[in-house]
């Protein structure tokens, strides 16, 4: 315990508060102490200590989760993995690498800059790869390159009793035993603490082009997405933004002299990756034909790299732009994901509900995955009955989603915010099976208690 004294732990109120708050509307529920380990061995030592004293333990990356994942409802230790931020090894010839859990995704790609390879998962936030693995992160590139479930080849995990295991490996496939990698990816810190992540990399595309297309109707935009996919076009990013989102977007960026306001109408932001300009042009032409057939117009290309980066940075700022619609705005972030054939009706009915209930609820998302976010905005000045309407809209959205055969959370995870929906979605027997796994790996219930499902008393 002596090593944990100088600079490697903190009980300063501001530091505690920071470690209990993520990017969501869920308030800060701070830990009792924050520890700053420097290695897997350190993490193991803390886990053993917490195991012996039955103290809750929650890993912390950079705090960009969206469902209160890092709240400490039972107090305990926040394990800040920020010092585990180095690349362990790079294997460009095999297109994989191994990074410590506290390394951010932008740091991983900076380290890979001369290899011609990249780690493709892009959730918007510059999250740590450990956090991304724990939450099964996804984002704008999933439609072509998959999510963390596809990107993680293996992990180093510290278990609840401090023992350290390695899952997966460098072979591209293996049938040697249960796939523990897939178990820990998305486990949100409830089964073990990830300290290293082996990542599958992809060649940086040789030719890239982005385009925007406008539609008069949200339905038409969704139909265009469906058509692009059914044509078999390997679109790299396929994002839908509704009119309120673009209005929020324009307002948010209006003080930037370089910003050109977007047309306030349902839009698609698309990106294509190709081996050559010729291949790219073929795919893009087909996709745009599909858009126009569905009622799309005013197709504009963002050709150079700087313009493309601005487009995607802008797309990723839509959460903040939406919250900015109200002074000190906060938001319930919905994360419905449905089969693509059901996307049009679910989005249409959600938009109609938002309008009818007169709440602030811009809609945008990864239409190519059937995943969209309705950002339900409020602030502390809103009367209780506005908040009630907001929660009703969210509840009906989830009902609608589950009825369509979808999931209440496509990518953001359960945290504490979505626990009640997991039972509805997975059923009692399903949740019991998860609880059995949880009990086997964390019999004392110290690993991020109160997340994914309720902690036993």
């Amino acid at each position, binding site marked *: 315990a002596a090593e944990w004294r100088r600079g490697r732990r903190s009980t300063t109120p501001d530091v505690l508060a920071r470690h209990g708050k993520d990017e969501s509307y869920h308030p800060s529920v701070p830990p009792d102490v924050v520890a700053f380990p420097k290695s897997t061995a350190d993490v193991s030592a803390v886990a053993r200590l917490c195991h012996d004293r039955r103290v809750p333990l929650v890993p912390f990356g950079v705090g960009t989760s969206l469902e209160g994942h890092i709240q400490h409802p039972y107090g305990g230790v926040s394990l800040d993995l920020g010092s585990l931020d180095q690349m362990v090894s790079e294997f460009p010839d095999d297109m994989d690498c191994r990074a410590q859990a506290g390394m951010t995704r932008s740091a991983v790609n900076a380290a890979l800059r001369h290899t*011609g390879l990249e780690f493709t998962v892009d959730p918007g936030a510059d999250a740590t790869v450990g956090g991304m693995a724990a939450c099964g992160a996804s984002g704008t590139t999933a439609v072509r390159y998959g999510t963390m479930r596809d990107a993680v080849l293996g992990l180093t995990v510290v278990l609840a009793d401090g023992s350290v295991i390695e899952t997966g490996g460098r072979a591209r496939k293996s049938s040697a035993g249960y796939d523990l990698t897939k178990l820990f990816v998305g486990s949100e810190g409830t089964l073990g603490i990830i300290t290293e992540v082996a990542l599958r990399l992809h060649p940086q595309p040789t030719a890239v082009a982005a385009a925007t297309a406008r539609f008069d109707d949200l339905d038409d935009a969704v139909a265009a997405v469906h058509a692009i996919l059914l044509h078999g076009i390997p679109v790299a990013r396929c994002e839908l933004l509704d009119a309120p989102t673009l209005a929020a977007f324009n307002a948010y960026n209006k003080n930037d002299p370089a910003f050109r306001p977007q047309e306030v109408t349902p839009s698609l932001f698309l990106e294509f990756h190709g081996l050559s300009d010729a291949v790219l042009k073929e795919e893009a032409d087909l996709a745009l034909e599909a858009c126009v057939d569905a009622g799309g117009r005013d197709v504009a290309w963002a050709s150079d790299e700087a313009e493309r980066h601005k487009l995607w940075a802008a797309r990723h700022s839509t959460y903040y732009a939406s919250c900015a619609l109200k002074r000190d705005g906060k938001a319930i972030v919905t994360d419905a994901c449905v089969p693509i054939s059901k996307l049009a009706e679910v989005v249409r009915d959600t938009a109609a509900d938002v309008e009818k209930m007169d709440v602030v609820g811009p809609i945008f998302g990864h239409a190519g995955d059937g995943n969209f976010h309705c950002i339900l905005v409020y602030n502390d000045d809103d009367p209780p009955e506005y908040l009630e309407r907001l929660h009703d809209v969210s509840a009906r959205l989830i009902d609608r989603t589950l009825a369509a055969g979808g999931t209440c959370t496509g990518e953001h995870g359960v945290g504490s915010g979505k626990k009640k929906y997991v039972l509805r979605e997975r059923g009692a027997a399903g949740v019991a099976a998860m609880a059995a796994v949880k009990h086997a790996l964390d019999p004392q219930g110290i690993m991020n208690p109160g997340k994914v499902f309720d902690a036993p008393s």
Partner: protein
Amino acid sequence: MRKVLVGVKRVVDYAVRVRVSADKSGVELANTKMSMNPFCEIAVEEAIRLKEKGAAEEVVAVSIGPKQAQETLRSALAMGCDRAIHVQTDIRSDQGLNPLAIAQLLEKVVEKESPDLVIVGKQSIDGDHATTAPMLAELLGWSQATFAARLDVAADGASAEVERETDAGTEVVKLPLPAVISADLRLNTPRYPKLPNIMKAKKKPLEALEAADLGVDLAPTLVVTGVAPPPDRAAGVTVESVDDLVDKLKNEAAVI
């Protein structure tokens, strides 16, 4: 211009947490990730842009260091350089080989290649001397513009205009070619090569020379006698009164 020569140095990667060797003789290099010096990446990028603009016909990259410096040269070739020259030496390039020796070796390469322009990074992130470019210019008797944030070569290739970043502000200088330019951060944002260019670079010409054969005295005039990490940050101390605080600021921290 016919030819641009770009100097690139292989250094400890900027993101690596640097460790001091057990005997405190230097930074631990074994099992440490090495990369092209960031200011050298900017220099390479500028040279390639000159070629793309049609202001230069050929870009040659040169690096002085051990066998692994050839990997750094292949990165430069992947970014778009046409040819590379490796000046081989096993003398430690972070502290064993002095900037003067490096400048003298580069002088020999310049004599061999007769470039119209030499671009290097303003400094390396290991030595941080920032003296190689000025010394090389002096040895060659050429004009120099260091800390370049903008470079414009005249259409006739006879002169260049450089915007320099200095501690006192930005200065614009005009200089005749041939000249030595050192690249600063704001000059450009380097491109990173895609796989097809990395594969193509493996076939581009790379010539190896021995530093010992070039008639330069490689013995150091600056000798590193020891390297130590900064002291661990001590825990803070809570003081009981303002008088206590003033006393510590005066007598311990010596800041008032």
